[in-house]
């Protein structure tokens, strides 16, 4: 087990020793600061509270999704483009273990990025805006922090699904470009698909990945279109994620490496 953690340590080294990774963190923090200041200047007439600012700045979480997709799309494909896969696989570790170590490193990265996002968001909001009673958030039921964290959890699940999708495409096609492109397509064109094939019109549509990705739609016990519930969407998402992982594992295990 201790030895397996060394594999994860290797993958981490390959993520964090790249300049690219630090540029991603820098962009996230800088844009957070920039938008914080913009909101601050825009709100001079009608001041908003710090918690409201946290909520407004939360749109920047899409950056965390994009950066996570980029890392996941690269982690297997890059070994093939660099040719390093040959040396990586000629070691006393099965391919399954190598792949799992890469997946774990990606998950750790998504957690690290999410943590930095949350810290930056809170820091910017509470430095620039007064900690006053929020006009937006409903009182009681966990308060603003609870609301923010619940929101983040839904967004994180969304991110996980799309990141694991990118991980699969990267493993199957060995090109990060395709993985990034397809993932971005799902991320941004999902709404269009949901509109075209709405679950209320097509019975099968509720099994599509797109319509289940936003778990926030069930907040407060709401029921989605065509009777979809939180439990239903969670089950569908789990099914998709398991399928993505199985495909990635199967292809990675069987592949003839002739890089």
């Amino acid at each position, binding site marked *: 087990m201790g030895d397996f953690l060394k594999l994860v340590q290797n993958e981490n080294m390959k993520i964090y020793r790249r300049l690219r990774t630090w540029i991603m963190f820098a962009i996230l923090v800088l844009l957070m600061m920039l938008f914080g200041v913009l909101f601050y200047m825009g709100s001079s007439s009608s001041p908003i509270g710090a918690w409201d600012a946290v909520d407004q700045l939360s749109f920047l979480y899409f950056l965390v999704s994009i950066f996570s997709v980029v890392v996941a799309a690269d982690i297997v494909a890059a070994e093939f483009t660099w040719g*390093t896969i040959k040396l990586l696989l000629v070691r006393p570790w099965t391919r399954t273990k190598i792949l799992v170590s890469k997946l774990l490193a990606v998950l750790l990265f998504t957690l690290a990025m999410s943590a930095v996002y949350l810290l930056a968001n809170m820091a910017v909001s509470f430095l620039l805006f007064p900690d006053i009673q929020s006009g937006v958030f409903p009182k009681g039921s966990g308060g603003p922090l609870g609301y923010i964290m619940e929101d983040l959890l839904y967004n994180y699940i969304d991110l996980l699904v799309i990141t694991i999708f990118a991980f699969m495409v990267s493993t199957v096609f060995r090109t990060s470009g395709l993985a990034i492109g397809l993932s971005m397509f799902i991320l941004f064109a999902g709404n269009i698909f949901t509109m075209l094939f709405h679950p209320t019109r097509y019975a099968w549509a509720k099994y599509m990945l797109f319509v289940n990705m936003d778990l926030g739609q069930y907040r407060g016990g709401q029921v989605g279109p065509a009777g979809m519930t939180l439990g239903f969407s969670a089950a569908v998402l789990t099914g998709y994620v398991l399928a993505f992982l199985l495909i990635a594992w199967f292809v990675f295990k069987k592949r*003839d490496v002739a890089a």
Partner: protein
Amino acid sequence: MVQEPVVRIQGVSKKIGSKTLIDNLTLDIPPGQVYGFLGPNGSGKTTTIRMMVGLMSITQGDILIQGSSIKSDFERAVSHVGAIVENPEMYKFLTGYQNMVHYARMSPGITRERIMEAVERVGMQHRIHDKVKTYSLGMRQRLGVAQAILHRPKLLVLDEPTNGLDPQGIRELRDYLRILAKEEGTTVFVSSHLLSEMELMCDTVAVIQQGRLIDVKELNHGDAPADGQRETAFDVDHPAQALELIGAGRIEGSSLIVAVDRSAAAAINAKLVMAGISVYGIRVVTRSLEDQFLEMTGGGHIG
């Protein structure tokens, strides 16, 4: 001396689609040897090596390394192997040292000292803390050898290792591989089409063509016997006249070539000089492995 082979390639075939890349290859590689794997371009050397180290699946047959099957007991089998398959690609954004640490973490019990020992072995200690992207091809090749020997493998598999090395580097590698085999008992399996190279460093050479094993040759590293007939070329100003005078042999360019032993060669030389023919040079024509190889494989057909 019968020793358990380090590698047993047992009736291995590789098919991709309808194409047979390797056809029922059987080969035992004895321990402590530098074992050459020779064949023209496209004959299947790299394919065989990829199957040996588990990068490619084996369609039929099996490969045992130290008695463990690369198919069914991959982790144990491959733990005895160090390899460079074609070019050794490294992580360019890491330093040489960080690359070594990366591979050190993947094998049990490799200390910092062992890393530096391997690095010094290939003469890279002065540049090891530079990023790999600043390395030349030869330097990357050296680092490749260092990562391959890091865990003191029983079997070192090298696919065209002299690619990109300068003459000095080639010589060092050759000497080093021989030392590894002799002193540490490592078996070195090395593929190449640089035949003269193989002749200099291998104990045994297996020749492959179109995916089939066609010959296994033990090379004699002792000098050829001093007497005995050898083809000898006399470089002269009038080869036709010389042929007439000696009455044997054949003409190649400006040389008369005769099969003679040492004393006869001296006698012929005297005869030529007496007859007023200028002799510019005398040399023994060696039939190199290269010639034998070309003969066996029938010239340079690819495929």
